[in-house]
């Protein structure tokens, strides 16, 4: 079983694309098992994060524009779960917060959740590799003219 720490879990669930519906299924199972132990601390809310960039001329940090995000926070008994995703994603974000809390609480579904995260992590790596693979043939090979 892969032992992702909490920060890593956050990032995998935040970036999950293809296959992210599995998060919904797992979260529904956790909720079905947990009954009244689940409290919604912050219902999924759509908002903005200001994107800050380091510009490379002087090294000045500036506000480049806002990015649409959704965040949610829940509690499973004494354990908190937090998630944020880009875009308007209330269901997936809530599911990610539930799964975060479930792993913190050592819920019986933890092995299945971590296995699901490993699959999503691999899918994201594959997506990135494919994205680079698509443009790699456009790398320029110059010929010297003599």
């Amino acid at each position, binding site marked *: 079983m892969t032992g992702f720490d909490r920060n890593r879990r956050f990032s995998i669930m935040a970036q999950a694309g293809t296959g992210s519906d599995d998060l919904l299924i797992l979260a529904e199972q956790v909720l079905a098992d947990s009954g009244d132990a689940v409290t919604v601390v912050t219902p999924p809310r759509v908002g903005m994060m200001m994107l800050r960039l380091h510009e490379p001329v002087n090294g000045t940090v500036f506000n480049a524009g*806002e990015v649409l995000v959704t965040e949610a926070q829940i509690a499973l008994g004494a354990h908190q779960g937090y998630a944020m995703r880009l875009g308007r994603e209330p269901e997936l974000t809530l599911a990610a917060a539930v799964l975060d809390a479930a792993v913190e609480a050592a819920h019986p579904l933890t092995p299945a959740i971590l296995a699901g995260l490993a699959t999503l992590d691999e899918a994201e790596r594959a997506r990135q590799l494919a994205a680079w693979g698509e443009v790699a043939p456009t790398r320029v090979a110059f010929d010297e003219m003599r």
Partner: protein
Amino acid sequence: MGYTAVKGGLDAILAAEALISAGDGRLNAAQVGRGARLLIDQVMGEGGLYAPELAALAIAQAEGDPIEAAFLLRAYRSTLPRIGYTLPSDGRRMRVLRRISSTFKDIPGGQVLGRTRDYTQRLLDVDGRFAAKARAAAPPATAIGGEGWPVFPSVVDALREEGLVRQTTDDPTEPADITRDALRFPAPRSARLQALARGETGFMVAIGYSAQRGLGAAHPTIAELRSGELPLQIRHPLTHDPVVLGAVSLVEVEMINHTAGGVGGATIVGGEGESSERFDLGYGLAFGRNERKAIAMSIIDASMNIPSNSGPAADEEFVLSHCDALESSGFVEHLKLPHYVTFQSALDRVRFRRLAQLSAERGTRNAE
């Protein structure tokens, strides 16, 4: 035509809006998302909100009008809470999908053209055959190993190591935020860059072009243009550690002003007994792949960075006061709205002066 206060027109307004809403054959957001990604990039930039799905919806709703779509996006933005700030990201951490330099042929990591039509002819594909031809002519896809995304060292950093461009400094000042505080001049650099990053593409290109035509001393060349996916980090509210939230699509341009010597060339720096020359730089940024705007922004920034420069692009107050699409189009287009009272007032003044003049002339004739 005397002055009359009016009200009404509601039925006409509703009927006019219905003509748009009932339009047949309109694109939906999914179609815009698939087929107009560059327009989405422009709208997100001018709207100041990175939200590709909402920008597509705005474009569909605005019938393809980018400024109207940016308006819709910014109006929606005003209803949202700002949850926080990302940790400052650096373009050098971008997962590069395109990267070119027009100053050096050989750059560390090489040049990657990416997805572009920059180097092919502009021919209208009237018989719909170009896509198939392009696919047939492309070399076979490269097999990619598992080493991950290549690293592309910065071109400007190589010049910086030689002392040919200014060193960067860690400025602890909290960045200005023009969405919260009105611009004041001279603007801090952070405010300038924020204003330009959400500037209107056409305006920015025109001002950048004016600098290239010689209005001012800039003679810009692209040291590096890179676009791709930039990972964003936030501080996790429970662990308080930096965590990756996801990635946004961006294009960055580092522009170098290359005329040697004098105003608009390399800036001469150094204290007593020493003298050296450094090239002035400019920076441009745009959401997505709006390269035209990012290049224009970098020309404008470089123009403003050149000491003692002149011309429209170097006039910070002029550029920053006029680059916002919503402010400019809103003020221009508000002229379509009723100005009956304003104009009637002007009309009354002119009529009164004419009567006074006629009366004076008659009085003079009678006296004669």
